[in-house]
């Protein structure tokens, strides 16, 4: 069973990696977008696993975008290296802010992260000389001269990296720490868990991922502006995708981003206007009717059939 699972995972990764070889330019573009949101969704979910709802995803994405683009623009840094810089910059900001805001809980943490993203936007819009103000800044050329295959592989690597980090969170002692914190902080600290240390660690790591994704996105278009970098899409869509797939797991955000990403592209073609309504409807519907997402529903069905089968055996 375990071997089979590994084989399936390897096959999917290989299929994903070789995607540009058998898919046309349009599917390639769609998948690049999907992978961007997948990485963002995973990072959001990882923070959520500690029990903290962050609305700062777009904020750190934007910081990474600006850091990457501006270091290439002003310092002539290699675009790939600049993406790394985007992650480091977001991580440093998260580390500094974490000391102040990681003692907050519930709506206060959520709202503060949203407000921080607002502050980032205002700063980016108003440092005209440095960031280009509302118009933003353009690089002479996009990364890899805009080669869609290479851009895809770049995004693929970022998403794969996020998946690995997410699995690391699930398979090591980190899982025990953050699940305990999410469930009961009093039990967690009485069992020797340094809550603040773990929250800071997860906050920094997830912000770094968001920064890297932002950096890759900015380099992909060779352009950054407050509206594009801090767009609420980078906050809302990953959340919707995680909810759809199922939270607190690696597979959930992965499934959710593929399904919703492809679905939304389809909807965009059918309904050029208002297709975002569907995201809102999905969020509302899932919260109301399917709080455990697709993954949770599948698990439930699997459990049900198993117990039913078991029940029959008992009767015999």
């Amino acid at each position, binding site marked *: 069973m375990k071997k089979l699972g590994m084989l399936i995972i390897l096959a999917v990764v290989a299929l994903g990696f070789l995607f540009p070889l058998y898919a046309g330019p349009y599917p390639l573009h769609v998948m690049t977008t999907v992978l961007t949101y997948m990485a963002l969704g995973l990072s959001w979910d990882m923070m959520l696993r500690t029990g903290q709802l962050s609305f700062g995803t777009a904020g750190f994405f934007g910081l990474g975008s600006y850091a990457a683009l501006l270091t290439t623009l002003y310092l002539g840094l290699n675009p790939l290296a600049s993406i790394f810089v985007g992650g480091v910059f977001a991580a440093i900001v998260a580390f500094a802010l974490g000391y102040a805001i990681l003692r907050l809980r519930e709506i206060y943490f959520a709202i503060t992260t949203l407000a921080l993203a607002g502050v980032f936007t205002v700063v980016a819009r108003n440092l005209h000389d440095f960031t280009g103000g509302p118009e933003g800044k353009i690089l002479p050329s996009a990364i890899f001269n805009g080669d869609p295959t290479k851009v895809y592989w770049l995004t693929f690597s970022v998403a794969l990296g996020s998946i690995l980090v997410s699995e690391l969170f699930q398979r090591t*002692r980190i899982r025990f720490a953050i699940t305990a914190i999410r469930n*009961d902080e009093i*039990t*967690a*600290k*009485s*069992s*020797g868990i*340094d809550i603040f240390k773990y929250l800071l660690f997860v906050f920094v790591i997830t912000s770094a991922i968001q920064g890297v994704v932002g950096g890759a996105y900015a380099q992909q278009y060779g352009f950054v502006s407050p509206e594009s970098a801090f767009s609420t899409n980078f906050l809302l869509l990953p959340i919707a995708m995680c909810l759809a797939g199922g939270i607190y797991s690696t597979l959930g955000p992965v499934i959710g981003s593929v399904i919703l990403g492809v679905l939304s592209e389809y909807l965009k073609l059918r309904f050029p206007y208002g297709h975002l309504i569907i995201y809102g409807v999905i969020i509302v519907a899932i919260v109301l009717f399917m709080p455990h997402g697709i993954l949770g529903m599948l698990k439930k069905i699997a459990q049900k059939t198993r117990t039913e089968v078991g029940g029959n055996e008992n009767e015999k």
Partner: protein
Amino acid sequence: MKNEPPILTVEKLIKRFGGLVAVDNLSFTVQQGEVLGVIGPNGAGKTTLTNVVSGLYRPSEGRIFFQGKDVTELDAHQRCRLGISRTFQLMRPIREFTILENVMVSALFGKGLDLKSAQNRAREVCEFVGLKRLKIPIESATVLELKKMEIARALASGPQLVFLDEVMAGLNVDETNEMIETVKKINASGVTVIVIEHVMNVIKELTHRVIVLDRGRIIAEGSYEEVSHQPEVISAYLGEEE
């Protein structure tokens, strides 16, 4: 044994909540290897005392020394790692975890073991307290199992001092006797135990020494036989009956 320094020293401890004084100028020591009973009517400050010594609350005034070290400013997780652990009167399992995983948490972080050793340690401790169904989810655990899990979790961090906060409450006679044996075993393994309990038989059976709290203060101290005949103690308990 008398000449050894105490494992726990509490000095002039005060804990206020707004205008309410839950723990009022408490001073006492606990000797290494001892089983100390803490009794008193409801609202006497027993659980607050546990919370302050284990680090969940900061005291309003006073100092706490553990093995000669001033731990007053340390956080709960730091005190846990130093060797102070506790159970919760209202059991607080991690609901998403199995029994074994719950116990593993404190082996991982309280004792600082890696995953594999933590799992082994958790198994040992569970066996020690008599837990058999280790992989069951919390919803299907019985009260006795949850109580044992609380104790196992408190032990898995490898403590020198354990607070057992009403671990017998709600158990029947057989279960209580089993639990008493478990506590004796814990003490025999070298762990100092502070038992907070309502059931007088348990206190009588287990403890070397008892302190009686009423409204946050110590009103009597001594062996069970000594304190149980003191008029203040009797009136404190009778006062509660009214």
